[in-house]
């Protein structure tokens, strides 16, 4: 069973992020790491391949500056190979362009049995790329998977809902987005870390994917960021001196909020 996992390499959330005042997009000039929300998809893919008794996990990523760090992390977890699309022309790409690029890159991996993604990235949060990829590849799509079991040409997916989960059956190949936290991503072993350095990484440009540079990046984007502003600071709370009737103030406050 061959599984493709779309992974995003993002600025380390532990470091304070910054916006480029000119482009109004996130500064991505430093080292990028594997988006934690993608590590669940990688883990699930590795488990599915293990359960199938054969096949491999291939990573697909679009990142600036030839960034490989996050891919090497996922390769160290056990993925077999990766496709990296990195091209200056991609700067400013919107979600749909990203999906087109990833769909074209997935095409370079052959015919996967399953494509996994996170439900959304931790730095972009559009949450639309998985379904756009499915549409572009003309594949069925299931979102918010909390577990996946493959039997022959069908995947049984538990799709998380607000009330619990739905059992969904989907014919393969398909695109499935995996909810964060549903599996425990493995720690890469030392052997895995060392082996990851020599695993195949197919680095390609927009032209290699048969796409026109004018269709991607800022010129291909169907959106424009016209302004960004600071989020409003939280207002200081109200301090009530308790003169013995403080609880009444709390009750009144909660009643005002219709909590009680």
């Amino acid at each position, binding site marked *: 069973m061959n599984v493709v996992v779309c992974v995003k390499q993002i600025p380390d959330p532990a470091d304070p992020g910054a916006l480029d005042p000119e482009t109004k997009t996130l500064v991505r000039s430093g080292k990028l790491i594997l988006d934690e929300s993608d590590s669940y998809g990688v883990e699930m893919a590795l488990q599915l391949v293990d359960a199938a008794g054969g096949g491999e996990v291939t990573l697909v990523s679009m990142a600036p500056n030839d960034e490989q760090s996050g891919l*090497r992390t996922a390769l*160290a977890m056990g993925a077999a190979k990766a496709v990296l699309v990195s091209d200056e022309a991609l700067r400013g790409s919107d979600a749909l362009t990203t999906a087109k690029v990833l769909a074209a890159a997935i095409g370079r991996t052959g015919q996967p049995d399953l494509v996994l993604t996170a439900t959304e990235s931790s730095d972009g949060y559009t949450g639309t790329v998985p379904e756009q990829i499915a549409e572009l590849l003309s594949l069925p799509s299931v979102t918010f998977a909390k577990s996946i079991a493959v039997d022959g040409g069908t995947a049984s997916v538990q799709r998380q809902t607000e009330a619990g989960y739905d059992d969904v059956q989907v014919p393969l190949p398909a695109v499935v987005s995996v909810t964060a936290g549903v599996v425990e991503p493995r*720690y*890469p*072993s*030392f*052997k895995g*870390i*060392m082996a990851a*350095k020599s695993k195949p990484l197919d680095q390609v440009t927009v032209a290699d994917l048969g796409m026109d540079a004018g269709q991607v990046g800022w010129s291909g984007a169907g959106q424009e960021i016209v302004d960004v502003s600071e989020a409003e600071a939280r207002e200081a709370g109200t301090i009530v001196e308790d003169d013995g009737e403080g609880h009444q103030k709390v009750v009144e406050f909660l009643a005002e909020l219709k909590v009680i």
Partner: protein
Amino acid sequence: MRFELTDDQVDLRDAVQALLEDLCPPEAVRSAWDGDGRVPSAWDALVEMGVLGALVPESAGGLGMTDEDVVPLLVECGRVGLPDPVAPSGYAAAAALTEALGDPAAAGSAAEWLGRIASGDVLIPVVDAAAPVVGAASADGFLWCAAEDAGPQVLVVAPDQVDLEPLQSVDGGRRPARVVRRGGEVLLTGDVARSVSVATADRLALGAAAELVGLGERMLDLTVGYVGERRQFGVPVGSFQAVKHQLADAALAVAFAGPLVSYAAHSMAHGDPDRSRHVSMAKLRASTAVRHAAAASLQCHGAIGYTVEYDLHLYMKRAWALSYEHGDPDAHRARLRDSLGLASGRN
């Protein structure tokens, strides 16, 4: 030597750091105080990752790495206050057994034990039978360096061949004991046993020094965070010279200990004739610097630093204990002085 870690060493260190941040948070160290002095989830994950087999030769199922690769990992173990015996078992004992592989009579037992260490069994070295042995109660065996009348010996001793007398420690996260040997399998004798005993003592001291550096950095991180938040007179207390200069001095002391630890690891890996001296320099500097950092951290925290509910004491008490283990500052200062041929005087 090149003090900067190689790309590979950085990757391995970062992987261990990420694992330990997840699996050995302060709550886990705290629970080791109430339990048996171990954090099983972290230990199992370190075994799975390959840390305990890092120094074990590839022929014995390990990764065949060197002191220079492993010592940075021990800094990370110290940084989180991991109470488990990574340094004694996975570093000092594994290195001694690797030496023993060269002796045809000892090779079989050594290879078996190296495999067991890589799989997570704990072999605790004992180089000074009079000193407390940390982790003795949960050991699967002891690597005993003995000075017998007939000459030096290195033995492998089973848990049922020793008597344990549990001891109290200021560091409640680990379980020291006095260990009395009643038997054991002789592994090495003569000059080989002597040199392995010295190297094992050196690696125990170096492992402690590495952990101390991690602990020092952790305490200073914790303290800098605290004094940046705690406000008095409308400003963070960290903005006062009396606080920031004290922490800067401590940070400088710890920063100077790190390269000595790296240099000692380089000397051990390359069989430098002065390696024992370099280890003493590292352990001496790490012990004094980190005790300095502990004192500064405690003072800059004010009253909360004295409470057991606050995390600082977990790291501070480990630092105090490790600064005395495997040679206290006076002992290493004396060894350093002797190795330089200096006259005995005030320490």
